[in-house]
């Protein structure tokens, strides 16, 4: 299986490549539109701010490329937030593949920001293919200060407020935690992603065309 990890610049992506290597699913790091389009699976990681990541994708000419992808795509951490319409982080427009706005995580006075550490998930849809073999006892490693809404969440986590931890819409999936740093549970989630069925045809390239 060919797996492209989108190189959005700057971030250390070695651990993502290693995690896929452990699954015997060697991946390549690329910002080349053709290699991304032709890959069977695409991962969109991201470290840094939403605004800088969107600028990097824009400069690489990848925004419309990603929007048009039909194969299973997984966003990781900031990569999840980029799938939404807008992020409060740098007040920027994002990819718009999942409806909703990413906002500051409201952790409250007693909790620390960023939300950094191990946490558990509530799977809202235990039958989702991404949930296979996983349950609310598993721990995942998070580092984030912004939170995505719950509408398309298949799993939710909590840090002062509930936020989307795993989302899925059409061929686009994403997780707010770092599966590559979440030991066996993270590896399991990545394996579930790689095993997703390829959708026959996406209903719409952009949900906004439905409204």
């Amino acid at each position, binding site marked *: 299986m060919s797996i492209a990890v989108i190189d959005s610049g700057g971030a250390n992506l*070695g651990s993502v490549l290693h995690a896929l290597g452990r699954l015997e699913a060697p991946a390549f790091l690329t910002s080349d539109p053709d290699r991304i389009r032709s890959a069977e699976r695409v991962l969109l990681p991201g470290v840094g701010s939403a605004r800088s990541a969107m600028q990097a994708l824009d400069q690489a000419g990848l925004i419309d490329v990603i929007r048009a992808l039909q194969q299973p795509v997984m966003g990781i951490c900031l990569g999840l937030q980029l799938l939404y319409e807008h992020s409060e982080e740098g007040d920027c427009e994002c990819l718009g593949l999942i409806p909703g706005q990413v906002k500051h995580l409201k952790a409250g006075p007693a909790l620390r920001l960023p939300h950094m550490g*191990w946490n558990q998930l509530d799977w809202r849809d235990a039958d989702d293919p991404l949930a296979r073999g996983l349950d609310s006892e598993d721990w995942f490693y998070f580092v984030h200060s912004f939170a995505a809404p719950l509408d398309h969440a298949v799993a939710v986590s909590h840090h002062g407020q509930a936020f989307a931890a795993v989302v899925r819409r059409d061929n686009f999936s994403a997780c707010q935690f770092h599966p590559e*740093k979440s030991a*066996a549970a993270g590896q399991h989630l990545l394996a579930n992603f790689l095993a997703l069925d390829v959708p026959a045809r996406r209903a719409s390239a952009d949900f906004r065309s439905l409204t």
Partner: protein
Amino acid sequence: MIFIPAIDLRGGRVVRLSQGDYDRETRYPTDAVELAQRYASAGARLIHVVDLDGARSGSESNLDSIGQICDAVDVPVQTGGGVRCLEDLELRLEKGADRIIIGSLCVRQPEAVCAWLEALGGEAIVAGLDVARTLDGQWIPKAAGWTEEGDLDLFSLLDRLSDAGLKHLLCTDIERDGMLSGPSLELYRSITERYPRIRLQASGGIARASDLADVAQTGAAGCIVGRALLEGRIDFDEIHRWSR
């Protein structure tokens, strides 16, 4: 409390020093990346990597090894040794480390560390204080491979760092580090009582599995274990036991 296995690097190799003395080094014939992977698969939720060359001379010779460890393990890594300016800290984050330990600089220039805490927040920074007890019972943090003393006692320094937003503290009792002489329980208890919101990582002197239960009783959030693991005094199963 979580069990935090430690790897000390010198010249890219796994070593342990006794009481921080560079002339009393024990080398272990283990590859650092392989050891980190063994710790991760034993269930570690955080791995502690110390750059001894960086700590002593500011050398960057172990940075590549640190980057390789961060890439190769599927759990977060904290690293310390050799952070003397903000660029040093950022370089280690770019290498893939999650938390950076600031040691000597906390003692020498607490105002600089306070400014970073205020700018970056308390999550990415761990204050790594190595302390020795004076005859009148005060704990004094030391710098520069424990050869240099700061102006402030431990609690005065922690008051300042805590006000600036310190969330994570690693505290080592110099007399016990690498000596397998049992943990410094009184020290840890005095810290957790005084600073209930700081998450304390206890370090130094762990020799047997029962020491871990003793440290957990002090309210420490984590316990760092190095030599006892490398020498088989504490079984790898303990990592899993303390990480569930």
